[in-house]
């Protein structure tokens, strides 16, 4: 049982309603955030930028999202982004690996370097050493790593929010 009201479009503040779909539906995450419409106004464009298509391809971003969510044990985000990861082109094998359903060493070298970086910054950022950084920078540019690191941080924030408030995962 969620710990926050999940507002319908008619219950939501007027400024929050633009984040609902035309038929009035919205994700449980959006419906919960609608109680804080000022924040929503800033957060949603930010999430759209950091999670959406950019100079980093969507498959890479979804891989990062699912991995961070797996590390943080967020059932909402894994349920929401597992299908999106496959849709974006993440292979079923890579998805299993980042969800710890298969060994990580089955990942291609690029994805392994990314996952090593993501694991480090999510679990113990102070311990991430130069070697890990150098390895990942062999595969992505510095600006792309900035983006992916902020993405991992943003997902960590959402993982904590969804887990603490028990936001119901999509079916």
């Amino acid at each position: 049982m969620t710990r926050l009201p999940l507002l319908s479009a008619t219950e939501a503040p007027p400024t929050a309603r633009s984040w609902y779909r035309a038929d009035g539906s919205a994700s449980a995450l959006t419906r919960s955030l609608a109680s804080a419409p000022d924040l929503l106004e800033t957060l949603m464009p930010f999430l759209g930028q950091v999670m959406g298509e950019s100079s980093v391809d969507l498959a890479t971003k979804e891989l990062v999202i699912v991995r961070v969510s797996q590390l943080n044990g967020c059932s909402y985000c894994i349920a929401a982004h597992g299908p999106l990861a496959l849709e974006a082109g993440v292979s079923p094998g890579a998805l299993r690996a980042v969800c710890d359903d298969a060994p990580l060493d089955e990942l291609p070298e690029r994805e392994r370097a990314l996952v090593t970086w993501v694991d480090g910054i999510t679990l113990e950022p102070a311990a991430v050493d130069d070697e890990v950084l150098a390895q990942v920078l062999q595969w992505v540019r510095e600006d792309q790593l900035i983006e992916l690191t902020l993405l991992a941080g943003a997902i960590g924030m959402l993982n904590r929010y969804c887990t603490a408030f028990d936001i119901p995962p999509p079916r």
Partner: protein
Amino acid sequence: MRDEIRASVAEGRMGDRLWLYATYHCNLTCVYCLTESSPRIANRRTLDSDAMVRATAEAKELGFTCVGITGGETFMLPDFPETLRRVGEILPVVALTNATLFTDRLLARLEPLFELDVAFQISLDSDEPARNDELRGPENFAKVVDAIPRLLERGLRVRLATTVADQEPEELERVCVLHRRLGIPDEDHVVRSVVRRGRAATAQMGIELGPTDVLPELTLTADGAFLHPFAPTVRSGRTDIDLLVSRQIAPLEMPARRFLSVVRDQPLGDDVVRSIR
């Protein structure tokens, strides 16, 4: 953006009155209360005096021309007379009250308001004590008709508000006879319907509000800023936020900016009949 807010107030897109919900606490439990206010309310959600004064000062800067302070019962706040003076020194103000707490001591504290543009809007729903008290609480009628002359004799302006539940026109006309006898002119008598929100919705009373029925007037509460004073209603202990424009109330420019984003594209209207002014 400040100029746009000023222009919107000037053209009437944004009402020129800023409303402040001083508290949700009340000594009465009116059957149609929008905010489920009562003596036993769990969370009083009070705007403190400094917050109201600050909002008023900022409102003046943004082009608002007057302030309304409502609740709950405003005089449940121990420092309300002083707050009223501080607000009234900045902008004209109307304070909504049930007028049941006006002891001699409290009235003496109101005397400094004589020199300011401060009015008291008092609720009275019938000329028949039993009818009125059925809606508003025991002895309410007697206390109101006692308080009004005492306020007027101190040179304080009094307005009367009648909330219509099922009163017939004849009964409302008798209320007019009464207010004239008490010394309140017709232009200071407000008649408005019960709105089907809050406790009135639970009791299936009143009228549903359409999106253009009420003049949009920026309304600040401890829960945030709302589209008009009928908006921050409470049902089953939870504040309705379907007409919330911002959780942020200070500085005032922030909720005013978000308010504007909601009303910017609405047609200008003049139907303010249902406003609680």
